[in-house]
């Protein structure tokens, strides 16, 4: 598996990899040897995806606030 640095992944990249891993885990050919590796990676990806949806990216927020015409922009 070509392991990409999770911190640099976009949400789309992360969820795409996550879905691929789940598919592999569901496959009857999934070896027990890969299982812990798959599980660990998918939990990491899940965490990153969820964070992208619910944790504030302060840097992005700041950049957009500066660009915005609205002084009260969130």
């Amino acid at each position, binding site marked *: 598996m070509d392991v990409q640095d999770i911190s640099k992944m976009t*949400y*789309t990249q992360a*969820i795409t990899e*996550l*879905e691929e*891993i*789940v598919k592999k*885990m*569901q496959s009857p050919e*999934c070896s*027990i040897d890969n*299982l812990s590796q*798959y*599980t660990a990676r*998918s*939990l990491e990806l*899940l965490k990153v*995806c*969820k964070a*992208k*949806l*619910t*944790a*504030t*990216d302060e840097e*992005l*927020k700041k*950049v*957009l*606030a500066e*660009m*915005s*015409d*609205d002084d009260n*922009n*969130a």
Partner: protein
Amino acid sequence: MENSLTLLEYNSKIKELVHDPSVQGCWVTAETSDLRVSRGHCYLELIQKNEEGATVARLGAVIWASTFARLNDFFLRETGSHLSTSMGVMVKVNATFHEQFGLKAVITDINPRYTLGDMERIRREIIAKLTMDGIIDMNKQLSWPLVPQRIAVISARGAAGYGDFMNQLHNNDYGLKFYTCLFEAVMQGVNTVPSVIAALDRIAAVLEMFDCLVIIRGGGATTDLNSFDNYELGSNIAQFPLPVITGIGHDRDVTIPDMVSKLHVKTPTAAAQFLVQCGIAQLDRLNELATLVVTSARDAVAHSREQLAYYGNYIPITAQKLVETSRLRLGNYAQSIPLVLKSRLGNERTGLQHKQQAIKLAVTSGFEREKMRLAALADKVQLLSPQNILDRGYSLTTIDGHVVTSATDVKCGDRLETMLKDGKVISVVE
């Protein structure tokens, strides 16, 4: 010097003429231009353009404040739009002429149905042109990002609709984070089109910062929508490279931007709800994937355990079966060996018998052949025997036991012994 009139006298005459009933209380169709409201009175120009767009007729007009308040409400109620510039109208006019201010048409009534029809015609023309240009569905063909979180907003700052949108979006119950950036624009009146297009251009310059664009009206439910029905604006939105959500029109009216955008919603709140819904769908997907990861891992472990248990049971049984099979096979061999031997011996015996027969035959025929050959030889010997030759009249002469075959072998005085068939004659050579 000819008789002349003062200007006031001349204008007074015109005023008399203008009172003619044929130019009073007439329904006139025209286009509005340079409309402005001052101290409650509405001043405007009524114009007519030819097919090339050149103005071919013009008349200054006014709706006095007392009439305008009533007409404007009626017109707004019927068309959903304020009376404004560049609108096709059918108005009832009285021609008036003031000596000092000249000719003016005083509007006393308006037929909103005509304007509705005219607006619809303009819309249809815009739609036809956007379709012919092949751009009407361009924005619709863009795909949504999985989670549209970075949102460019075109609206009027401080407007109720914008506030509703921001509130709904940022205070969602799911903790979903959105990043909005307002690009302010005028959302009503004649400046709407250039103002919104300018905002679009500003966003296009920082396109990679955003996932989608939301265009929402600033004001309440009865804003002037007519100004949005514009080809340039429609064309810009249709070709915008980000998916666009519009919340401009309302239940009754769908504006050109609403028609060309990726998604048209009825209110700014609905635009925010859609975006939140996209986020919720992703949260649901993540939860589903989390469950799948856990169940898949659990299933895989359970499956491996089952497999182990199976092998645990299977191996002794298999071994036992293997021993059993081998024993059976041995038994079969033990039984089959004598049988095989017997049949093999039988075969050999038959073979030997055949060979014996063949030898016998060979020997017998050999004897016969030799017997016949001996008989032939005996015949030959018989034929060649000296006795047989003597019998046939030949004689044999010897001297001292040696056979005489030539006359030179004989000399005088030799004693010849001649053998004949039935005896011998002795003679002396002279």
